[in-house]
């Protein structure tokens, strides 16, 4: 391979994995190099095929039940702790019941644990049929839907072209208060964007929190609190955050 071409670095460029400096160099090279332009087009075409066709595994309810069962069998403390809380639910209900159990421990108690609350809300939203109350990729449909349901308004934008398709919105409850949840989709991963008035809090830069492998990115801007919650790679959440924080073009 000719050393002057991007080669493997082209992939890191497409994946947003180059340092700012090297990404700028790559971009400058791409302006004048038709071969690398063509390679770039190929990588992007392939990635879009993969993202359209690769489907995540969907563990069956029976398998999840079996998984829990075997872990419980291996729990050395199971006799001490056993509480009669595991009345088995069968069939499709089992998966839902599982999620509730998963979400419960971090939900409810201290209002100061906002990360736990939004992560719990995120997990609840992934239960079948409860991701969106209003399902639309049109922000002119989603935004008015919240009017009258919430005592505040906020901007709703679609970032489909940047890889974050608006799927709709939902009324959710965090800390006992009704809040807006916008739903974006990055490939097969759902991202919840929670928005509510931040009160007197000053603006803050995005900050990471993480619970049980679910990432949450939080910031305050113009009196509104924002939480992005998802299991996508943290780089993706940061990218969505910077899109949302950028002024509308």
């Amino acid at each position, binding site marked *: 391979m000719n050393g002057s071409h991007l080669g493997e670095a082209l992939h890191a460029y497409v994946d947003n994995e180059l340092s700012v400096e090297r990404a700028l160099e790559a971009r400058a090279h791409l302006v004048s190099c038709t071969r690398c332009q063509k390679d770039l*087009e190929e990588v992007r075409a*392939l990635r879009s095929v993969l993202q359209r066709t690769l489907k995540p595994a969907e563990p069956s309810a029976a398998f999840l039940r079996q*998984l829990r069962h075997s872990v419980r069998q291996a729990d050395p403390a199971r006799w001490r702790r056993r509480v009669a809380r595991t009345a088995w639910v069968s069939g499709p209900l089992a998966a839902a019941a599982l999620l509730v159990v998963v979400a419960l421990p971090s939900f409810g108690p201290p209002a100061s644990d906002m990360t736990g609350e939004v992560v719990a809300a995120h997990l609840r939203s992934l239960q079948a049929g409860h991701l969106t109350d209003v399902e639309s990729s049109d922000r002119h449909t989603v935004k008015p839907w919240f009017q009258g349901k919430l005592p505040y308004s906020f901007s709703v934008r679609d970032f489909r072209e940047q890889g974050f398709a608006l799927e709709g919105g939902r009324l959710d409850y965090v800390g006992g208060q009704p809040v807006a949840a916008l739903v974006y989709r990055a490939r097969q991963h759902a991202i919840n964007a929670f928005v509510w008035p931040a009160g007197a809090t000053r603006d803050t830069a995005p900050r990471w929190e993480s619970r049980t492998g679910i990432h949450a990115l939080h910031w305050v801007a113009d009196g509104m609190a924002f939480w992005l919650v998802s299991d996508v790679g943290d780089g993706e959440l940061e990218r969505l955050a910077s899109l949302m924080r950028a002024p509308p073009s």
Partner: protein
Amino acid sequence: MDPPSAEEFERVALPHAAAALSLARALVRSDADAEDVVQEAFMRAFKYFRGFSGINPRAWLLSIVRNVGYASLAKSQRAEPVETFDEERDPSPSPWSSEERPETPEAALLRAVDTEAVQAALQTLPTEFREVVVLRELELCSYKEISDIAKIPIGTVMSRLSRARKLLHTRLSEGRASG
């Protein structure tokens, strides 16, 4: 201190069951075997849960799934075509950069490719390539996460991913060309 309970473990691990199963499926290439791999990986993870740093449970679990998956491949006589390779000694066979590419626009060529074709093409790749493709394109892992899961340097993540994509592209293009 009490040892961690099954409940605590489930709270941390179960949200990643689908990711675990996706990776296992990519490694062992059979749904039933993949479930076995995930089940064993969860048992093992629970056993070592006390030593877990708490930082990135998904990456931690996936690295265990990967170990169990490879062990299962090594055991099964349905022996993988052992396509190990050495990035340094064996630089890109690079269909990507060859000059005699078909002139058809890539997008048009690949547009009609469906899930089955992609699965079939993926199956022909060496295990090390299948896993980076699934971790990156399906699980949206960063290079750092892939490096942690597969225990390889970030530079190797980049080179495996680039070679995996080149190979996939070639297989898919061949598939399209031959009908």
